[in-house]
């Protein structure tokens, strides 16, 4: 391992030619000197020759990585681990006199204690010590020796120095560069004595740039249009068209979702569904609208804190709610509350700073200048969310908001206007109503009492009027009112209790630990229990004050289906009561198979006293309707009072009764209209998707350094702040908004570099800084430092214009090179870090599926909405969870772009994972590309790809004449953009003919193949022929080129 570490180090940061003969090449050295002479700052340039002069040893590029990887663990930023009080990450410490000797004496190798120790043969003295598991190679020792001899010049770590806009270097081949990017690349190539590759042919170029900017292959017509367009700006217009495509935002969003650990489930054991697609769609739209990256940043990190934040800005703030949430029973919520905040710090630092700040959670960072205390200062920015450590099992965890789509917002506006109009119309009738009621009540008389109560939502009613509940007797009301935790409900009754404890009604077994719901008196207080598990999965709310014993009173409780204690209201005699929340931990439905019991049920004692008019409504009745229930007077009794003598409650009940039963038809119609529209509005609002958002507590939660990172070991108290090694936060009131603005301050050393580096990775396969997630001391130095700085400053200067930057990248001559490579070139630069050729690498997982769907014509290009469930192997979820499988969609949802596929974090879509998709359990900005037999099996056999092959075959049969060559050529073009060579066509044709003959022998096999997938095969086509073309299409879709951008 040690040896490997060194080798990587050398490979990664130097990209040196391997030929030893280059070592003393005077030409090479001259070239290097010449370029320096024109005063161009290209940090990496000095690496152009195999052997460097001593003075060419650069601290940041050559020396720090060695010190960091081998020494910093004990002689670095971590004060707790530091040995001998020596720091080698700080110049002063490394050169300070220590009892007559100095670790590093510039220019004097023989006096430098460091050199003596790293070359000592005494295992007691040798550094790094053998126990550390680290070892310096001879080459590394040589680097250090030459650097000390040359004066041991120190530099601040490059990534912490703000980028200065470099002047593009001058080059010999002046006709090659198309824009400044090329000057940086070419200067390096010329220094390396390499020549750039010729431009890729136009078809290849059209396919490359279309795939890069939209994630989809170009159609043959698009390719033809570009190839035959000989105007000077043909390519620019192609690029502009692609940047304007709605598919651009989807392609960009795919990697952003990885970074944001976006998913459709909450992760951890339960991994229940959540709803965050409104945030996902915000991201896609933001990319499509080319929202400036600084604004993109601010809205996602602190949209909720913007003045008068809009719905969209609040939705955007969900970025830092995309982390996992643990809802496993029995967890200790404080433990996970900390994990969520840590995740936010870690993700934010990785995505914007490219730093591994998370290392400082438990101790000072071992390699980079971040103390543990500074980690918790960042933690404090994200620690003020009114959230719980235990997440909701099914659905979003608070805080979340209703997030209607634009269409729903319009619907709501229209409905609200209608409702207001209807209310106005009803109000207009008030005079007529009052007069009518007055006339009617004056004339009303009844021989028998006329009880009445509103019944719009009545579910069950039990007019018991029984006084003999004695603590043993209960009434079994049967299987009614089986509510679950998403249901709205009202329970109410008249009671005259004789004891201060007893159950009024319950749907709950009469035993300890039973689940269900109950309304009971407990120590005189009226208490509601909604229970899955008594101790930690329940809502328990009771009145603050005890009720009177032996008094007839009306009690009612409502629950709004929100799963929260705050959704429970208790009323006594029609008046809302102050309540105490005893438990607010409901996380599973409390629905049971127990019958409803009156006067008892559940583990507690049964009721003693009088119970009357027990009733259950299937909604949470508003206060004014509860008041009607609590008004016991019959209609006739109220009528018999003079209007002036009626209480307000009596008048209200009379009015409600008159309105419902006797008012003139126009008034009742007007009222009905109001009620219906109100209900429609409520239904519409209930249908709105919700989305989790960031929100600040009114009083910030205190933050502490957590000793060893443990949630239950708080140490020193800290307030929000940024690390001292980065620019200061220009505000005295640090909050997330200030942090977000600080990140996108033009003077920030990291943000712009980190972002352009990831864009570079997207187009070229590898970042200019290969370690896209680590710009610290342990990361790789940039291959083209000046280019990185040029791009970063260009991004800022353009107003953080991402489309403009990508236009520059894909317009460069560098990007437009052919990706063919000779063995010699491959030997010289196997990973193409010097970019003497164009990028050639495998598609992302999403692109592989999307491109196949596109070629086949199956792809449904529809924006956004809830995530979809395309084909999934049966039993996939069930075998791991014991629960149900996903319900697979049918029709259009089978063919949506892959970024809309429902992402279950603990059981990810298998083919996506086979093609190296990020798992979305945590932030990921690295791009992985493996090449495995499981990928081959998926492309050959998975229903998605077989169906795509089948439909591609059908498409070419329908869209061309009967000649096999013509059909095969079209299929080839739909997948690869280019036409097949004669040799390729010959192979494909013979494949087709062989398969056709075989299917003619065995038509059942053809029929079987045509039944893979749900898209119907065109009955008009010859099945054997279609199947034979399908196998050829399968072959084409499996070509290396079919899954490769080249």
């Amino acid at each position, binding site marked *: *391992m040690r*040896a490997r*570490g060194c080798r990587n180090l050398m490979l990664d940061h130097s990209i040196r030619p391997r030929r030893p003969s280059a070592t003393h090449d005077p030409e090479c050295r001259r070239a290097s000197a010449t370029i320096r002479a024109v005063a161009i700052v290209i940090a990496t340039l000095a690496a152009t020759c195999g052997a460097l002069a001593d003075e060419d040893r650069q601290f940041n590029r050559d020396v720090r990585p060695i010190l960091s990887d081998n020494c910093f663990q004990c002689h670095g930023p971590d004060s707790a681990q530091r040995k001998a009080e020596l720091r080698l990450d700080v110049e002063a410490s490394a050169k300070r006199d220590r009892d007559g000797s100095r670790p590093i004496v510039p220019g004097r190798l023989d006096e430098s204690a460091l050199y003596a120790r790293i070359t000592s043969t005494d295992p007691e003295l040798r550094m790094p010590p053998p126990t550390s*598991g680290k070892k310096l190679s001879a080459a590394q020792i040589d680097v250090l020796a030459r650097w000390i001899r040359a004066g041991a010049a120190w530099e601040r770590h490059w990534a912490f120095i703000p980028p200065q806009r470099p002047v593009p270097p001058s080059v010999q081949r002046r006709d090659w560069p198309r824009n400044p990017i090329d000057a940086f690349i070419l200067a390096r190539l010329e220094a390396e004595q390499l020549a750039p590759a010729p431009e890729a042919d136009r078809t290849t170029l059209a396919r490359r740039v279309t795939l890069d900017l939209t994630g989809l292959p170009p159609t043959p017509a698009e390719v033809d249009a570009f190839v035959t367009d000989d105007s000077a700006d043909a390519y620019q217009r192609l690029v502009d068209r692609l940047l304007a495509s709605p598919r651009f935002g989807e392609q960009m969003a795919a990697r952003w979702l990885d970074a944001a650990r976006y998913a459709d489930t909450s992760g*951890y054991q*339960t*991994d229940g569904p959540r709803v965050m697609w409104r945030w996902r769609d915000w991201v896609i739209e933001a990319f499509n609208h080319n929202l400036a990256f600084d604004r993109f940043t601010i809205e996602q990190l602190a949209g909720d804190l913007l003045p008068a934040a809009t719905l969209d800005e609040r939705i955007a703030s969900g970025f830092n709610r995309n982390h*996992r949430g*643990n809802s496993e029973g*029995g*967890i*200790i919520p404080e433990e996970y509350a900390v994990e969520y905040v840590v995740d936010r710090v870690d993700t934010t630092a990785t995505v914007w700073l490219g730093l*591994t700040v998370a*290392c400082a959670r438990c101790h000072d960072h*071992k390699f980079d200048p971040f103390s543990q205390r500074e980690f918790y200062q960042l933690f404090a920015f994200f620690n003020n969310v009114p959230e719980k450590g235990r997440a909701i099992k099914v659905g979003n965890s608070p805080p979340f908001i209703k997030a209607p789509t634009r269409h729903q917002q319009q619907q709501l506006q229209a409905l609200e206007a209608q409702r207001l109009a209807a209310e106005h119309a009803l109000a207009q009738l008030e005079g007529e109503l009052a007069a009518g009621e007055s006339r009617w009540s004056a004339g009303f008389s009844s021989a028998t009492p006329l009880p009445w109560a509103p019944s719009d939502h009545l579910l069950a009613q039990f007019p018991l009027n029984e006084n003999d509940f004695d603590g043993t007797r209960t009434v079994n009301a049967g299987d009614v009112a089986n509510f679950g935790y998403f249901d709205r409900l009202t329970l109410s009754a008249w009671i005259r209790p004789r004891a201060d404890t007893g159950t009024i009604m319950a749907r709950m077994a009469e035993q300890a630990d039973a689940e269900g719901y109950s309304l009971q008196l407990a120590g005189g207080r009226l208490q509601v229990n909604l229970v899955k598990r008594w*101790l*930690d999965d329940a809502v328990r709310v009771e009145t603050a004050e005890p009720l009177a014993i032996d008094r007839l009173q009306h009690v009612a409780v409502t629950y709004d289906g929100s799963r929260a204690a705050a959704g429970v209201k208790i009323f006594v005699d029609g008046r809302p009561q102050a309540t105490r929340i005893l438990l607010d931990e409901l996380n599973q439905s409390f629905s049971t198979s127990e019958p409803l019991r009156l006067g008892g049920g559940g583990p507690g004692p049964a009721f003693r006293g009088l119970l009357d008019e027990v009733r259950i409504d299937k909604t949470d009745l508003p206060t004014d309707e509860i008041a009607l229930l609590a008004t016991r007077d019959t209609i006739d009794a109220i009528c018999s009072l003079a209007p002036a003598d009626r209480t307000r409650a009596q008048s209200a009940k009379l009015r409600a009764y008159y309105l419902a039963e006797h008012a003139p038809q126009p008034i009742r119609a007007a009222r009905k209209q109001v009620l219906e529209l109100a209900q429609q509005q409520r239904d519409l609002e209930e249908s709105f998707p919700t989305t989790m958002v960031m929100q600040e507590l009114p009083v910030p939660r205190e933050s502490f350094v957590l000793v060893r990172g443990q949630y239950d070991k708080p140490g020193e108290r800290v307030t929000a702040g940024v690390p001292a090694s980065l620019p200061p936060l220009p505000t005295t009131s640090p909050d997330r908004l200030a942090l977000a603005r600080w990140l996108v301050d033009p003077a920030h050393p990291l943000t712009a570099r980190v972002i352009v580096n990831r864009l570079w990775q997207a187009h070229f396969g590898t970042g200019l800084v290969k*370690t896209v997630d680590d710009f610290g001391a342990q990361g790789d130095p940039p291959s083209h430092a000046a280019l990185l700085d040029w791009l970063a400053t260009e991004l800022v200067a353009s107003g953080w214009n991402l489309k403009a930057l990508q236009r520059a990248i894909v317009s460069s001559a560098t990007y437009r090179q052919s*990706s*063919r*490579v000779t*063995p010699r070139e*491959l*030997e010289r630069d*196997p990973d193409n870090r010097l970019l003497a050729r164009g990028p*050639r690498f*495998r598609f992302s997982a999403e692109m592989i599926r999307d491109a196949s769907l596109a070629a086949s014509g199956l792809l449904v290009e529809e924006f956004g909405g809830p995530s979809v469930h395309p084909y999934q*192997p049966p*039993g996939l979820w069930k*075998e*791991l969870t*014991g*629960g149900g499988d996903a319900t697979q969609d049918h029709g259009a949802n089978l063919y949506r772009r892959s970024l809309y596929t429902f992402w279950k974090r*603990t*059981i990810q879509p298998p083919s996506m*994972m*086979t093609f190296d998709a990020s*798992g979305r359990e945590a932030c990921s900005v690295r791009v992985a590309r*493996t*090449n*495995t*037999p*499981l990928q*081959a*099996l998926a492309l*050959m*056999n998975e229903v998605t790809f077989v169906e795509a092959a089948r439909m591609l075959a059908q498409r070419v049969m329908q869209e061309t004449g009967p000649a096999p060559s013509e059909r095969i050529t079209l299929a080839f073009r739909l997948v690869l953009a280019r036409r097949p060579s004669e*040799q*390729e066509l010959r192979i494909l044709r*013979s494949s087709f003919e*062989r398969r056709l003959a075989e*299917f003619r022998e065995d038509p059942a*096999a053809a029929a*079987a*193949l045509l*039944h893979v997938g749900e898209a119907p095969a065109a009955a008009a086509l010859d099945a054997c022929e279609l*199947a034979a073309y399908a*196998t050829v299409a399968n072959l084409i879709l499996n*070509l*290396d080129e079919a899954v490769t951008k080249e």
Partner: protein
Amino acid sequence: MDPRAQNPWLPDRRRFLAHSASALGTAALATLLSGDARGAVSPDDADAPSGLPHFKPRAKRVIYLFQSGAPSQLDLFDYKPALRDVQGSELPDSVRKGQRLTGMTSRQASFPIAASKYRFAQHGQGGAWLSELLPHTARVADELCFVKSLHTEAINHDPAVTFFQTGAQLAGRPSIGSWLSYGLGSENRDLPAFVAMISQGSGNPTDQPLYDRLWGSGFLPSKYQGVKFRSVGDPVLNLSNPPGIDSRARRAMLNDLGALNQLKLDAFGDPEIATRIAQYELAFRMQSSVPELTSVADEPASVFEMYGPESRTPGTFAANCLLARRLCERGVRFVQLFHRGWDQHVHLPQQIEAQCRDTDQASAALVADLKQRGLLDDTLVVWGGEFGRTVYCQGKLTRDDYGRDHHPRCFTVWLAGAGIRAGTTYGQTDDHSYNITADPVHVHDLHATILACLGIDHTRLTFKFQGRHHRLTDVRGQVVNGILA
């Protein structure tokens, strides 16, 4: 010799193929893959660690029988006769010592002691105590080493299982099998180095969910992730050709595909194309090697008798044990079974009896079967869950019924086979099986020991990610020499 060299599943062959790509025809490649590739793969592999194994391995492979949900050590292994006398009395504070409890029982009004209702007896020469629930395990007791002093940090399933599998409670690290395939590769070119299999316990048919991350590769390249063998449909996803395409047709298609890819390789020179050609050939070979492996039709009746009647039913623990032996025979490096259903919060007796019926006979049979085939000499077998269970009762305690909550402070795991001191018991717990009194073994220690059996110094199998050289055992872990032969 570098065992990786035999395994085209693992190495990134880019470097090697870079040298030979242009000269290499499909036929040559095919020969290379079907024949002896040893030494052909450059040791200068971009991903692979070098210098492994670090020392002479005792074991070549591992079968890990993971009991998901956490079996009760008190009712299976950790015999505490004195508890009968204090049945129902409150757990003394002097034992609990204020240690944290889960949210499920921390608000319980009392913590009554629940003694195991099962009889225990000593077995074998080693005299290991086992409960009556494990009669088959009792018969192979002398092959096993019982570690009674395992302890962990997590108190809930997800973080605890993740910790056992990856050495960290939070998602993101490679699983133990991925570390081994990264470090050692497989002995079989046609099979993955790491196979996972799942079975549902009959004690508790809905618990506990598992997660792909448990056999995932974390930050290691995804080629090191475990391949889940399934009991429904294809054993490996997408293994079968679609209806209407038989093996002969697939072979013909692959010949054409290879020829076309070769043209591309000749024109473009990208060694990834050569790798892809090779991976398609490998996929084709898997299409026959995997069904051959998973079809147990060739096993004699005596084998099914040994593993129990359920071994004929695909997807059961017993069937998976038999498959584990077949994988092991074929040189798969790390086979991990996950048996769910061990989370006995309530009705423990009824549930655990069913769990033991699922697992006891087949686990014992696997050990005996490996032994009779000589495979136990170089195969390590591990049996255990993610934590233990509390001595105090969760929920209602009666004479015959009780439940137990999660207990991370001590629990039992057994090991057998290569490198293990058979017929012994290691570590001790207090009279309540609540705290460890001698020889604690942390999860990191168990990992270090498993790696040591395979000839790996756990401090030296590392992978650099986000600036840090990560390892399975994080910054801890001591090899438990006391359990090694």
